[in-house]
């Protein structure tokens, strides 16, 4: 003689029932038990509601900047000869162990470009010319203009640097641009912040 079915058996069967996957005898039991037991009836209602609510959760739209960055990276790699090896795929996350978000335009791109421009400019101005070079001397106006350009470059590097935490900007200023700053008479404490 089979044991009488209980609330715990109902619990075992209710999810299949909600999915419409119960065998006929099991479905009959679930219906009959729910009719007789208020607690299990409530359980059945909640199980159905949950599935309905889950299925109503909306699909989400991936932000375009995410795919733009990925496609830009892929396109750049094609230009460089195809996808990088899988071993190089992991990008260190800012917190460690995860991933770092790419941006369509790398955050340090403009800063590095500005730094490179400033360094190039300073090199062009400071490297001694051979005596045979007919390069004309820089006028005071040109020098003032160059100084202004470099100030702007520092300000830009500082602004981007602050957005990314500032550390790299400081290093760049200290290691790359400080001599330039000094050559142009800009105070070291005047670092763009």
């Amino acid at each position, binding site marked *: 003689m089979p044991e009488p079915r209980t609330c715990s058996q109902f*619990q075992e069967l209710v*999810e*299949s029932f909600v*999915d419409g*996957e119960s065998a006929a005898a099991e479905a009959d039991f679930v219906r009959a038990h729910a009719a007789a037991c208020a607690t299990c009836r409530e359980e059945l209602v*909640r*199980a159905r509601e*949950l*599935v309905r*609510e*889950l*299925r109503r*959760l*909306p*699909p*989400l*739209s*991936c*932000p375009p900047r*995410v*795919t733009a*960055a*990925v*496609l830009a*990276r*892929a*396109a750049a*790699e*094609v230009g460089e000869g*195809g*996808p*990088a*090896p*899988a071993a190089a*795929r*992991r*990008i260190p*996350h800012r*917190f*460690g*162990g*995860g*991933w*770092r*978000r*790419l941006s369509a335009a790398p955050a340090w791109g403009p800063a590095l470009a500005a730094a490179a421009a400033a360094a190039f400019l300073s090199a062009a101005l400071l490297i001694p010319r051979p005596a045979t070079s007919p390069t004309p001397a820089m006028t005071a106006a040109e020098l003032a203009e160059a100084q202004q350009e470099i100030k702007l470059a520092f300000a830009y590097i500082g602004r981007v640097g602050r957005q990314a935490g500032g550390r790299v900007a400081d290093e760049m200023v200290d290691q790359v641009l400080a001599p330039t700053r000094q050559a142009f008479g800009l105070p070291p404490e005047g670092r763009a912040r």
Partner: protein
Amino acid sequence: MMLHRFRDLVEEHQHRVFTFAYYYLGRREEAEDVTQEVLLRLWRHIESVEPDSAGAWLARVTRNACYDLLRSRRSRKRLFRQGLDGPAERVADGAADTEAVARGQEARQQIERALAEVAEPYRTIVILRELQGYKYQEISDTMEMPLNTVKTYLHRGRRMLREQLTEAESYA
């Protein structure tokens, strides 16, 4: 050619990857990070991933990436518990009155919070099945587990979710 195929796959799967990551992690920024990482992995493996199996491949890689991120999140010492993000953008927003929208958002956030508490692999299976409409067989293929196990885990996951919601309601 490869880039063209990659673009097509990105176009086809980006929202599904992001949706899974968001509901799995409960944080939009992390979902973006994971989506980006997963799509980059797809690019790295573009020659070996068959277009027909790309969906299952992406689901598996996304799930693993989310799981890894969750582990690293848990391993980090946090000074305080961060709340969930606000809801991400919906693909299509229907017109509705403000009160109904607020009620809907509250219910949705409750479910999102409860979902974040469901253990693995139940959470993945619930998301794939109930939110993303995968068939049992597709989940079985993606998760590399027997069909009956998928069903059992789905039911167990939903039961856990109900328990989480009941618990949350009792606290409220």
